[in-house]
């Protein structure tokens, strides 16, 4: 399991990767403070041929499926590429699709396309069902910066999330198609207020919830998972020092400097 840490941005569009200089984008993201990103690849219902996973050294790839319900099941089982994606997001376009997602699809993110009004009727029950399954709701901020109608749709949808589920399990990601639309994590926390999130929720949406997405995704790819046990090769010196530090803190809390200077001694004392 890779170690993931914040901040997260789960929707960098594929265009960023191909049309522009990706290293520049990457640099900018790191500068802004992002540590985990996902590249978004959209798979439409129309072309069911799975795309190859791109290998560019980024932590993980994402795919959006627009499912006709039956097609997806066929797809999940048959396509070997499906498993290569770290995170799967779904973008339902009909009422049927969202209901199917509630009951059958195993994915991580429920996305929303701000080009159109929300095409299905969400209910409180469905919202909670999806949360129980470990879904997260995605809010994209880049389209909201870019365009007036998309902004209205996005705000409306996020307010719907607010009124149905108190904005539980909401993640904010960029959905940026160009470098110009990326914003720093702290700006996003401030931006959260127009999406009906409190400051704490907004912060969680790019840290805590986003981490949960990753954990869920790992769990999904390995079947039903509760715990993850891993063998770590570790430097023995390093671990000794850690132990000493802990012990030391228990014994005498004011003696931090000494502990750093003479870790070995402390160990023997114990």
């Amino acid at each position, binding site marked *: 399991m890779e170690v993931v840490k914040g901040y997260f941005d789960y929707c960098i569009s594929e265009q960023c990767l191909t049309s522009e200089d990706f290293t520049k984008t990457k640099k900018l993201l790191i500068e802004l403070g992002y540590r985990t990103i996902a590249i978004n690849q959209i798979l439409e219902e129309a072309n069911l041929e799975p795309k190859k996973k791109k290998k560019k050294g980024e932590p993980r790839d994402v795919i959006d499926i627009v499912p006709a319900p039956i097609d997806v099941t066929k797809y999940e089982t048959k396509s070997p590429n499906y498993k290569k994606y770290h995170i799967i997001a779904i973008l339902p376009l009909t009422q049927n699709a969202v209901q199917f997602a509630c009951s059958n699809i195993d994915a991580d993110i429920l996305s929303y396309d701000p080009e159109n009004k929300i095409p299905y009727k969400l209910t*409180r029950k469905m919202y909670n069902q999806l949360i129980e399954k470990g879904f997260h709701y995605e809010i994209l901020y880049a389209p909201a910066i870019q365009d007036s109608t998309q902004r*209205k*749709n*996005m*705000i409306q949808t996020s*307010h*719907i999330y607010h*009124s149905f589920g108190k904005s539980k399990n909401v993640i904010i990601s960029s959905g940026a198609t160009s470098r110009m639309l990326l914003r720093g994590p702290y700006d996003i926390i401030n931006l959260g207020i*127009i999406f009906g999130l409190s400051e704490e929720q907004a912060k969680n949406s790019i840290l805590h919830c986003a981490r949960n997405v990753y954990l869920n995704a790992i769990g999904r790819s390995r079947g039903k998972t509760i715990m993850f046990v891993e063998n770590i090769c570790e430097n023995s010196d390093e671990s000794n020092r850690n132990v000493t530090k802990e012990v030391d803190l228990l014994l005498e809390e004011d003696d931090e400097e000494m502990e750093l200077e003479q870790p070995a001694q402390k160990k023997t004392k114990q």
Partner: protein
Amino acid sequence: MVRHKNRYVVTVISQIEKDEAAALILKPASLHAAINNKVQQLYGDFGVAAIAAGFTAKYCNEKTRIAVIRVRHGPHRFVTSALPCIKTIENKRVKLNILYVGATIKQCFKFILVYQQQKYDQFCSKLKSDEEKAALKESIMNFDNLSKIT
């Protein structure tokens, strides 16, 4: 079960430069559009997006010029604050007066009933024949539009 709270705003649309009793004929969609435009002007995209869910505006009665607006609790403040600023609907110079803000359609209905009765009595004073009065009552007490709003 938590429910959605709504607010129902009863307003009277009076046309400037016209007589009190004159009827004002409006298209069904135009009030909705006028409010949306004004909110856009005052609160921008955020305001429009915030009120969009569950927002309806119905013009109910041409004789007494009553309109009922339904909007979610919370963003209803955007609407109620935008209403006094509306100056034109369909290029007619108008003035909006909020009469009542209620939480249920039933309370609104009670209020409107009393209000219409009052108006009816006012109008009646100018009329003589009973047939005319009956026709007036028919047109004033017609709430078909209102029942659609719920």
